[in-house]
């Protein structure tokens, strides 16, 4: 058995974290991407820049600020306590919040590009055929943006799987709660258990390769480029 009990727990936790993050991101980013694709507001530029920040910031910076904000003495942490809820750092849902921010651009940008590529014309055509705004969105915009949704789902899932710095800062290293695969590999290496590290690290390489290969096949079939 190449994987220990702890390894399997880490894999299960990673998949659960990535899946939860992916679903939440698709739901939350759709309106945001729609707004970015269609607005002429002067806030468009600043909002785009904020969305892209996680691309360039070191994960430790994101993790650090999240820890400060969500911690017991941070503004959001105090708000949570005021609501009678536990604070988020060092919990699974704390990791989810961190992953949402860490993987945000990987969901927003493909969706935004997909909505921009559709343009106004199909929506105008739908309006002249009697479809109201919400009807148009669900029956025309969403189906036409499907390649963008596939790309956003795959990228945000895969990027969350590869998360390390944010997890370490915000989640620590609690087995079964916050110890994801990347942290587990780190632990193995620290303990000089190279054979175990190989199995997990090699698995990550294969997984990442499969994701990117699948993405390129999917984009070729749908005729749209993945950005």
């Amino acid at each position, binding site marked *: 058995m190449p994987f220990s009990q702890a390894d399997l727990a880490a894999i299960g936790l990673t998949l659960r974290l990535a899946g939860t993050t992916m679903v939440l991101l698709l739901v939350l980013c759709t309106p945001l991407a729609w707004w970015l694709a269609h607005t002429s507001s002067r806030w468009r530029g600043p909002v785009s820049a904020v969305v892209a920040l996680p691309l360039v910031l070191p994960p430790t910076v994101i993790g650090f600020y999240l820890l400060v904000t969500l911690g017991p003495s941070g503004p959001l942490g105090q708000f949570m306590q005021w609501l009678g809820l536990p604070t988020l750092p060092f919990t699974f849902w704390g990791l989810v919040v961190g992953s949402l921010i860490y993987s945000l651009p990987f969901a927003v940008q493909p969706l935004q590009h997909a909505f921009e590529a559709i343009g106004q*014309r*199909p929506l*105008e*055509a*739908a*309006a*002249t*055929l*009697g*479809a*109201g705004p919400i*009807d*148009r969105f669900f*029956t*025309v915009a969403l*189906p*036409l943006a*499907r390649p963008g949704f596939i790309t956003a789902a795959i990228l945000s899932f895969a990027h969350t799987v590869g998360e390390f710095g944010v997890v370490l800062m915000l989640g620590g290293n609690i087995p079964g709660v916050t110890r994801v695969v990347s942290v587990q590999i780190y632990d193995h290496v620290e303990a000089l258990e190279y054979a175990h590290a190989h199995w997990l690290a090699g698995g990550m390489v294969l997984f990442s390769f499969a994701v990117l290969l699948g993405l390129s096949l999917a984009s070729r079939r749908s005729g749209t480029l993945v950005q």
Partner: protein
Amino acid sequence: MTTDISTAPILARLCVARPGFTLDVDLQLPGRGVTALFGPSGCGKTTCLRAIAGLERAQPGHVVVGGDTWQDDAHMIWRAPHERGLGYVFQEPSLFDHLSVRGNIDYGLQRTPVARRRVALEQAVELLGIDPLLGRRPAALSGGERQRVAMARALATSPRLLLMDEPLSALDSERKAEVLPYLQRLHRTLDIPVLYVSHAIDEVARLAGHMVLMREGRVRAQGHTEELIVRLDLPLAHGDTAAAVIDGTVLQHDAADHVTTVSFAQGLPPLQLVSPVAHTAGEAIRLRIQARDVSLALTAPTDTSILNILPATVMEVGDDSPGQRMVALNVGTTRLLARVTQRSAQALALAPGKAVFAQVKGIAIVN
């Protein structure tokens, strides 16, 4: 309300101001038949159409169609495009790529209240000849087929007004020739008023009974097509494409010579033209006579190969290209144009009131 809904005029007072361009028009269009919005590119035809559809907001604007107010800024009335019950055919077909041809047509049909449906799906499909295409994806269609599907899709919503924005301009001449007969058939079969944007005068002459001539965001003239295209004070009656349009009735068709005889006015000799297609007596027919195919003589020519020689009176002589003059003629009450050289015009002393004979060399059947 006592006005007949189907024939109530279409009113559109629209102002659209954009940097470097202002549209300011006041249109009163017939509530039936085809009206062409005609003018050079950039004159505001498309903006006008979009403002009537509500895709762009005229400010202020007042649009009344079929007795229904679609926009009236004086009374804070605004109906969104999807609440107007209109049909719109864009310059590019704009089909939904994720739906089949049938899915595209159903899309509008399903959103049309049952009480308002007057065009059956089968009728729209039949009129545009797209039955064999129904199961296909838009991506698998040719340009002409796509535009026909787009027209069927708009028609299937039984629109109260059909707006068409240069539906043929993205097609090459072969595809154009493929789609045009469907368009003509559609206008003759369905009693839906059509507003047709075009910058091709031959299309307008074939399709439209009424036209609005636009220039730089304003209406230069509006009226019956036959009357506007022969007015020497307007640009249409000049140049190579200047032509008159005449409505007539087929008297007979000589199958041996392929000659169709058409009467167009009481007491005047009928027109004879070569037609490869047989026409039946009594059929209504629209003819187009180009100014460059009409020559003038002071005495009735004999021993000539020209079949049609009509007694006419010169009404007006105007300038045309250098060395050429455009002559407006009345044949009875029918207006014709003749383009002659400046030298001939002087030699024949052409002036209003002069009696002449118009020799017509070519006549085209428009529909």
